[in-house]
């Protein structure tokens, strides 16, 4: 219990919130990395997944890429990138690793969502004389939206977690509070940092959960997805 009160007093010390290594700076870095990389990975993964899903090819790739992503340790990829020329470019390794790990859930969920669209509806759309592009934008994509959004949610949570691990390899973000705590042998700071990271991850997950529930009608129907 002592550690918890120590961690609490660490968190409530205002000096720890401000300055270059302060909580606000780290939180800003974490948020910036998460948002930028989420946008980048959506821009990479979603067009590919929607296209593959539309033409109905590349299913094995889209599904297996998730399994591969799970088997490759994030930390290993971060360190490998750090030792390549990318490592000299500031946050380069972090950003590349973050995007690499956010793409698989986006790709898999969007692809599965597209393939699970009722084929009768697609055929009806074709029968009505819709062009391929109209079918994609007006029929398949709206119907696949719940699973696409589930993929975005999983990717966002994955990004928050990966950005934390980036601190182990010298990147910015909230994880730095934890690693600094380890270096100072300050259990209070380690625990305080961990509480911040856990709270941040849960808030991100909670926001997406709430967004999916509040979104009109059909979006909330299917929350389950594939990680």
């Amino acid at each position, binding site marked *: 219990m002592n*550690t*918890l009160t120590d961690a609490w007093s660490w968190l409530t010390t205002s000096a720890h919130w401000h300055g270059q290594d302060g909580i606000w700076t780290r939180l800003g870095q974490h948020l910036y990395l998460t948002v930028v990389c989420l946008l980048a990975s959506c821009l990479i993964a979603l067009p590919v997944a929607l296209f593959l899903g539309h033409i109905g090819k590349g299913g094995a790739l889209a599904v297996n890429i998730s*399994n591969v992503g*799970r*088997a*490759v*340790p*994030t*930390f*290993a*990829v971060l*360190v*490998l990138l*750090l*030792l390549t020329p990318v490592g000299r470019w500031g946050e380069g390794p972090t950003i590349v690793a973050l995007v690499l790990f956010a793409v698989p859930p986006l790709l898999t969920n969007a692809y599965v969502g597209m393939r699970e669209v009722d084929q009768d509806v697609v055929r009806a759309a074709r029968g009505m004389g819709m062009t391929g592009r109209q079918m994609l934008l007006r029929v398949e994509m709206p119907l696949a939206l719940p699973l696409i959004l589930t993929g975005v949610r999983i990717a966002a*949570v994955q990004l*928050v*977690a990966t950005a*934390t*691990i980036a*601190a*182990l*390899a010298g990147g910015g973000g909230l*994880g730095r509070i*934890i*690693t600094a*705590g*380890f270096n100072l042998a300050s*259990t209070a700071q*380690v*625990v305080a*940092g*961990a*509480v911040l*990271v*856990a709270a941040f*991850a*849960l808030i991100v*997950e909670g926001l997406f959960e709430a967004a999916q529930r509040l979104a009109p009608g059909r979006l909330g129907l299917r929350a389950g997805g594939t*990680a």
Partner: protein
Amino acid sequence: MTAPPDDCLARNEWVCGAYLSSRRHILWDAALQHVQLTAVSVLIGLVLALPLALAARRWHWAAGPVLGVTTILYTIPSLAMFSLLLPVYGLSASLVVAGLVLYSLTLLVRNILAGLRAVPEDTRQAARGMGYGPVRLLVAVELPLALPAAMAGLRIATVSAVSLVTIGAIVGYGGLGNLIYAGMNTYFKAQVLTASVLCVVIAVAADLLLLLLQRLLTPWTRSRS
């Protein structure tokens, strides 16, 4: 002074045979620790997940909290999870195992529960009609039928655990992660690449092994496909 030897170690190359032969024992020990940490965590996770899944199915009110809590645990980033357990376990292998157990719980409970729920009611009634008691029904009918779903969860949990062990390097018990961490600090390319590749090899080998086990345990699923 003699000139340093001009081998791949001195040139700090990514792929280095001299590294493999001279550090064989270090690599072996790290890989062994990696496998042990993974295996112990997943086994403990399995032992805990089964009663939780059974409770969640037996009592309706238990399902919500069990699934909710395990999902929340799964959302917490691994570095934070290990750090939160630090006051409880200190810098020890138990800390890494405890963290990994908590992660594997989510996947295992969910999949075992899904498997149990998917057992057809007709099958259950047929077994009851044949005079099966609740325990025999569970062991001889429901669990075998839930096995494919449970094994799918076990495979994902194991592969994830292999990858997450590396984060244990922060407390010095990360198996191959220790070598990656040390290699990062000394810019030792061969060590980082070798340890990373071994991680993936362990993950793939564990996955294939479990797949093989599943085939052996569920011979009835093969004739159908």
